[in-house]
């Protein structure tokens, strides 16, 4: 019985040795992010406007109903999102919006440090999403 006991403890002790720790000292140290990580959304800009054509597929597919789109016609007669807002407090980062987008106008970045002080700061409007 003692033998088994020592064997178990040795595994534990091995993990205590330097270089075997799985935690990192965040924020000084950061983990490498997987290429398909789903962080903060980004609206992709095109030449003189956003790529988004306000087709309403992302708010339709969104299971958390956190996306607000309002479409309008611009001077060129094109459809564009006058309003594009994501409520991050509601978002569940499922990435369905990215999948649904027919023009690849929305993608998810690797940004995950999304804490903020006010509720209002979690509403990402079009200008913010284009910059993120």
């Amino acid at each position, binding site marked *: 019985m003692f033998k088994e006991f020592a064997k178990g403890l040795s595994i534990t002790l091995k993990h205590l040795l330097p270089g075997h720790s799985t935690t990192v000292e965040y924020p000084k140290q950061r983990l490498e992010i997987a290429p398909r990580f789903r962080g903060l959304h980004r609206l992709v800009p095109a030449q003189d406007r956003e790529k988004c*054509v306000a*087709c*309403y597929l992302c708010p339709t597919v969104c299971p958390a109903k956190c996306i607000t789109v309002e*479409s309008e*016609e611009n001077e060129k007669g094109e*459809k564009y999102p006058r309003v594009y807002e994501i409520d991050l407090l509601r978002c569940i980062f499922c990435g369905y919006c990215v999948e649904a987008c027919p023009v690849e106008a929305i993608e998810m970045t690797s940004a995950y440090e999304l804490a903020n002080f006010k509720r209002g700061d979690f509403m990402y409007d079009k200008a913010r999403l284009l910059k993120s």
Partner: protein
Amino acid sequence: MVNLTIDGKQITTAKTSTIYEAAKENGIYIPVLCYAKKLLPYGACRICLVEVEQMKGRLIPSCTTPVTEGMVVTTTSDEINKVRKTVLEFLLVNHVVDCPVCDKGGECDLQDLTYEYEVVTNRFQGEKFDLPTDEVNPLIERNMNRCVLCGKCVRVCDEVVGYGSYSFINRGFETKIATAFDRGLNCEFCGQCVSMCPVGAILPRPFKFKARPWQLKDVDTVCGYCGNGCTVTLGVKDNQVQTIRFNEDTGVNHGNLCVRGRFGYSYVNDATRLTKPLIRKGGELREASWDEALVTIAEKFKAAGKDLGIISGARLTNEELLLLKRISSALGTHHLDHSGGECYQGLTAGLNETMGISASTGTFPQVEKCNAILAIRSDFYETHPVFGMVINQAIRLNDAQLSVIADKRGKLSKLPNARTLMHKPGCEINMINALCQVIIAEGLAKTDDLQGLAELTKALADYTPETVAKMVGADAEAIKKTARELAGAKNAAIVVAYGLPYTAHSKEIAIAASNLALLTGIAGREGSGLYLCGEKANSQGAIDLQITPGPAGLGAQQMLNSAAEGRLPVLYLVGEDPVVTYPDQGLVKKALEKSFLVVQDLFLTDSAKYADVVLPAASFTEKDGTFTNAERRIQRLRAGIKSPGEAKSDFVVFQSLLNKLQKTAPAAPAAAFGELTGEVAGYAGIVYEQIGPQGEVWGGETLAPLKKVLIPVAGNEPLQAEYQLLVGSALYHSGSVSTRSKGPMSVCPEPYIELGRDDAVTLNVKTGDMIQLKAAGVTIQSKAKVDNRLPKGVIFAPYHFAGLGLNRIYTGQSVIAVEPSKL
């Protein structure tokens, strides 16, 4: 009946069915693109191909192939699916796939079929079209790059509307749908093409990029404009009516609408709607609370008692009219009338004297099966466009003969088979009398149990077609032909429309028309009918509920007279704008100034500016209740949106008023309808909740006359003046409320005075020039519009616009002598 087998199912169907119709009746699905229930079979898209055992070797288009006895049909097989998929691939070679920005996305037939048949790649390659989109007109947007050439727009415009805006042009790959000379659209803007398009090639421009189809809540209600009673399906989102949706399953109109119904909805969301009650304090209208306003009104009403005059609009629901009647009886006043009292009531009163009934005797769908139709007054299409489309269908499908008794040409005159019996303005009765005379003289009359035939025959001695023709400038032969057609037809219809702009001798016209209906046997015969059509959505309801002066009560015009003389201290206007729409503006203004005026309306109308208290009311999209249309069809309205601000429906306002008068009121429209069925004879037995999508026609499909009395009526002498003005309706507008709607205003934005070509040359006027009309010392000015539908010496002006001040010279005459001059 024919027996056949579809997908192993034994089916018995009518001999006239196609395979597609037989399958649909029995719940078997066959995909289609170019098929539409109300259009003739066409067979353009080849999506509906099926296999028929007896015609092996090729696939058969099911929408154009009639059923035959013993047919064995297969609707799906690997081969059929392969062919359908190929057809879709062919369509998608040219079709631009811009679904994300196409407003049709989500309810597009091509999109749905592409999804269903999993067309993910295309084996064929070709050029996408890059045709310019039609951005010229404000209502209908055409993008022919998306067109699949199903031809539905071409067919609906021709077969149903009878306008013929579109046609296929070019050949082969270059084929496209275009207007004459490929210019921008300049048509009635009824939007039938919009409703028929299976893809996004023709779309409603006011709805452009507003919302996606799946975001809209569909609410079936009844259009609030004319007496046709079309079902409109509101597309509601964010408490706004975003668009009118296409719906061919509900209502008497089979999805057909006119420019007002389809594009005239924007006034309900207008920012200038009244949102709070207003009370005049210190000479100005100031916002007040409901309670304050209602207390003020109740006090005034009580003080006035039997000297209160109530003039109601005919766009209130039956339930609201019932409560209004309760208010008048609670106060003991008999001075109760509605806008129809000016004109439509005359019609029904005339009918009452001859036949003992006060409504149309048939229903609209019956007209489609008629062989001969007589329209009295050329404005009929302009006031009731969708009924006009029914007449057009009777001509196309049934080869009906249409005659129009008209003082000017209109849309009806342009229809095939149409015979226009032109006459000098104001002489309709002479023409009808001449028709009666021919029928009696030629022994064509159905004289069974008719009273007063001898008197009528004697009185009509002066109305031989020749005499009348000479007197009113008509064609005697044409009169005779029409009379013979009407008398000889198996099914025939006589249609008369009346509205505020022509109030003169309405009762006489109704009597003359019912004489004709009785002589030809049209009245009360199954399949035939005499149709009296009121101008407003609930004109018939107001007559049924007797919103008419009680014993010793004053009618609308008399009330205004009386008020102008200071004998009627309080006036209550509900949904009426007499300053703009009633004859004799001077008198109206004087009446409104002199009395304590309460106005209940959607907007601060010209009449409301004279008010002492203004109450904000609700539009037809904001309330529940019922309308009764011109064919006696009771249909339900359903609230789609909430009223802006503190505005309340007339029902709620009347309820509170009744409470202030210490009376009880029904709690909801459904309860009010229950009480109503007990009071209005024809409505008995109708249950509010059971009024179905097609409505409920009171009195049955054919309303039998209670008596058959012929009454002679005298015709009129034509007016001897070089220039004569006719007042009437424009196609794009109805009443004055449509002038607050963006759709109608974008195609008919301002008042105009219409001249015939000859007069335009004489007066040296071109379209767009300013022109002045002088009558009885008053002048009105407007832009001129030159057209070829008016005979020489006849001038026309629509009455809808406040800016024109037409009722300054129009005081109820049938025709006005004017002196035109160019400015």
